């Protein structure tokens, strides 16, 4: 992000950015930057809080009134993060193995039932917000769980989406599943708590368990891209965990 600022500035466009990692801002020195001590994914701070969001914007745009730079400023309010991590992290000890899979049809049936039970609340959330972020994969909601379950048999299923191989599609389906759950719960229970959402989906739901089984399949896979997904923490939220996933180096990047 800081690097992009230099390109736009050299095109004669004045830039101002907000950023979460102060050391990077200090090193790359974009012309005008506002450091935010917030969790990642929340650049304007708080959803559905126009007053707070405008505070951030006004503080950032105030930097456009300086005559020289680079200038770095700190937004005065902090949104605390937990244990130095800027997003939810799975507990390092919560790891499943392929021996835990058992009957794939039974796993799939549990997940389908869980998703079906949430469906009315999901539809209510979409109606209230007049938008949904579910669907990045391009698959229908009913297709998500069967597609993931296909991998639990240890084989790479055929991609149902033209032009997109199965493994990149799998990543998007995993994110669609999580979005289906969190969009539903944040609206149904009127809560905004990323730690609670992560814990509920990844540690407590049947669907989260299916994805941890998928992670186990990935670690055991001969397919380099499947292994890369876990090495690079691209599927289960382990980037902020204290220690790499057992069986991986966490050095994929």
């Amino acid at each position, binding site marked *: 992000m800081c690097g992009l600022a230099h390109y736009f*500035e050299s095109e004669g466009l004045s830039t101002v950015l907000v950023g979460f990692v*102060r050391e990077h801002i200090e090193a790359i020195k974009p012309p005008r930057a506002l450091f935010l001590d917030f969790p990642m*994914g929340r650049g304007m701070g708080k959803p559905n809080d126009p007053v707070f969001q405008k505070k951030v*914007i006004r503080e950032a745009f105030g930097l456009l009134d300086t005559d020289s730079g680079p200038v770095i400023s700190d937004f005065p309010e902090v949104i605390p993060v937990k244990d130095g991590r800027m997003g939810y992290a799975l507990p390092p000890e919560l790891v499943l193995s392929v021996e835990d899979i058992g009957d794939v049809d039974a796993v799939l049936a549990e997940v389908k039932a869980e998703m079906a039970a949430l469906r009315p609340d999901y539809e209510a959330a979409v109606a209230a917000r007049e938008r949904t972020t579910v669907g990045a994969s391009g698959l229908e909601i009913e297709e998500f769980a069967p597609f993931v379950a296909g991998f639990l048999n240890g084989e790479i299923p055929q991609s149902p989406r033209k032009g997109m191989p199965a493994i990149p599609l799998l990543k998007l389906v995993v994110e669609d599943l999580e979005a289906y759950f969190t969009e539903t719960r944040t609206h149904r229970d009127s809560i905004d708590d990323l730690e609670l959402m992560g814990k509920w989906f990844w540690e407590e739901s049947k669907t989260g368990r299916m994805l941890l089984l998928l992670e186990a399949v990935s670690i055991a896979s001969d397919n380099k891209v499947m292994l890369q997904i876990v090495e690079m923490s691209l599927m289960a*939220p382990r980037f902020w965990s204290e220690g790499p996933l057992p069986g991986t180096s966490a050095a994929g990047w």
Partner: protein
Amino acid sequence: MTKISEMPAVARGFISNLDLPVVDDPSWAQPVPANKRRISIVSTAAVHRRGDKPFSWLAKDFRAFDKTDRDLVMTHVAVEFDRSAWQQDLNTIIPLERLEEMADDGEIGSVAEEHYSFMGAADPITMEKSARQAAARMKQDGVNTVFLIPI
């Protein structure tokens, strides 16, 4: 403040080992007065209109979307950041409605017709060509100010 040195092990190792771009002779574009600013947002959240081509994992290109587009999806490769906030309110990462309100109130000049999204996981050095293409489109739209927001 969350310092890199205080982050958990995996993140600390990754973030502290990133190659950061060095700019020897940085440009400075003098800002215009607030009420003349026409603003375009650049996000590195890898969002795009539903139906647009998803971002590849280390994409160098960008997607443009209109200021009235709300049916956006995210195909960012990384999962370390919270997605629940933007699910609740697009303005948490791309504050188009806030900017429109500020334009209506005269705090800024206007909101650009187009806004842009990049894949934040990619090395910014690989994005230079795309960034300059986006800049050319912005200038055609009369944009003079860019608001960059990471994910």
